[in-house]
């Protein structure tokens, strides 16, 4: 076995890796879309007046947040078939990522809603706006900018957690690297290329989120003046 980096091998597997990158991006995008919606449901559970629902919701969120995503993936992938629900690895992965990060996003939403000053609510009440109208025209437009940085962070977070999907057989980038590496018995180039591809995609994304955050902070400051 030849030691050291081999450019010809790296070049040979590059197309395969790039195709798999596309799958990773799709997985992150779909998982994120599901998480955005799931987060709304957890938020709803948090804000209903019923104390029992609040309690159950909080415990579920706490449980999902304090257990590893990896075992949750295994749980969904291996346990659902025992109850006669047969889902593809892709679907299992998307559901699990959606649930896991949905709990985090619900916290982002909550923080954003609480970031809207209470006086805004009181003013709407005084003007006799309906609750729906208050949310739609007054509260949500103000809460959304506050939520943007957190939402961006979790998009990057989901992207970096997609390699876990390879453990249940989703054919994303890391899975492709393992397969190529196993086939040729060379792991140096595939895994290094995965790292580089992740860097190329996630560092600019993270920088963009930080810029957004700064801009939102400035905008928030302006509102206060």
């Amino acid at each position, binding site marked *: 076995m030849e030691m050291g980096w081999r450019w010809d091998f790296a070049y040979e597997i590059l197309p395969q890796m790039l195709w798999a990158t596309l799958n990773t991006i799709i997985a992150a995008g779909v998982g994120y879309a599901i998480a955005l919606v799931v987060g709304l449901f957890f938020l709803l559970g948090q804000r209903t007046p019923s104390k029992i629902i609040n309690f159950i919701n909080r415990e579920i969120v706490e449980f999902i947040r304090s257990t590893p995503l*990896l075992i949750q993936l295994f749980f969904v992938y291996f346990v659902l078939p025992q109850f006669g629900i047969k889902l593809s690895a892709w679907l299992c992965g998307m559901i699990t990522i959606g649930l896991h990060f949905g709990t985090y996003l619900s916290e982002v939403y909550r923080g954003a809603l609480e970031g809207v000053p209470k006086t805004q609510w009181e003013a709407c009440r005084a003007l006799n706006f309906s609750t729906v109208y208050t949310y739609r025209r007054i509260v949500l437009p103000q809460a959304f900018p506050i939520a943007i940085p957190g939402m961006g962070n979790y998009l990057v977070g989901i992207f*970096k957690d997609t390699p876990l999907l390879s*453990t249940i057989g989703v054919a994303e980038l890391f899975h492709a690297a393992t397969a190529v590496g196993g086939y040729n018995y060379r792991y140096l180039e595939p*895994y290094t290329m995965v790292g580089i591809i992740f860097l190329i995609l996630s560092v600019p994304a993270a920088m963009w989120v930080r810029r957004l955050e700064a801009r939102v902070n400035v905008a928030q400051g302006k509102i206060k003046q």
Partner: protein
Amino acid sequence: MSYFAFLAEHGTTLLLGTVTTIKVLVCSIILYVIISMIFGLMRLSKNPIIQGTATVYIEFFRGTSLLVQLFWAYYVLPFFGISLEAFTAGVAALGLNFGAYGAEIVRGGILAVPKGQWEAAHALNFSPAKRIKRIIIPQIFPIILPPAANLTVELLKATALVALVTVVDLTFEAKQINSITWLSAQCFGTALLIYYFMSRFALVPFLRWLEVLAAKKVGRGKV
């Protein structure tokens, strides 16, 4: 097979795995705390080389996925003649990855200490080492402990990944039992519960206690 029969048969294996998980956790906490202190301070250095090194390190480890780093440490380093044991590779990857996140927390904490404190220490002719040790560090603890606590809980969850580089921890054992018995609900469910209890009833209360302790210490100092 009832759940209790399952526990009687495989409970010990899972517990042994839990012990390994705790070992991984403790070792990587120690490593990540040290690394975040060092790189957090380096980030604030005025020397562009030191600061640049820290920035590259942080961006690199935050930008690539933890799983990729783990596999790199375990499967790729041997190509360079460095063969690490699975446990060492796992702890190293966890420590380096979380150290990068921790360094940013430390940096934020140091910046949050009012500038007047530095100036006052300077005016009193404290040596740089004493300034850091006696004035700044006691004040940054209450600031950095809450975010560091969140990070540590994330670390507990991330230790599950070392199972994928053949460290025989809780996740590894659960997977093993699953492949022998196919009692997926029982073994993965139990593993989930153990992680949950470790986090909720051991790690989080301990970290809260530390937070209260740190806050008290500074509060007493102020009076």
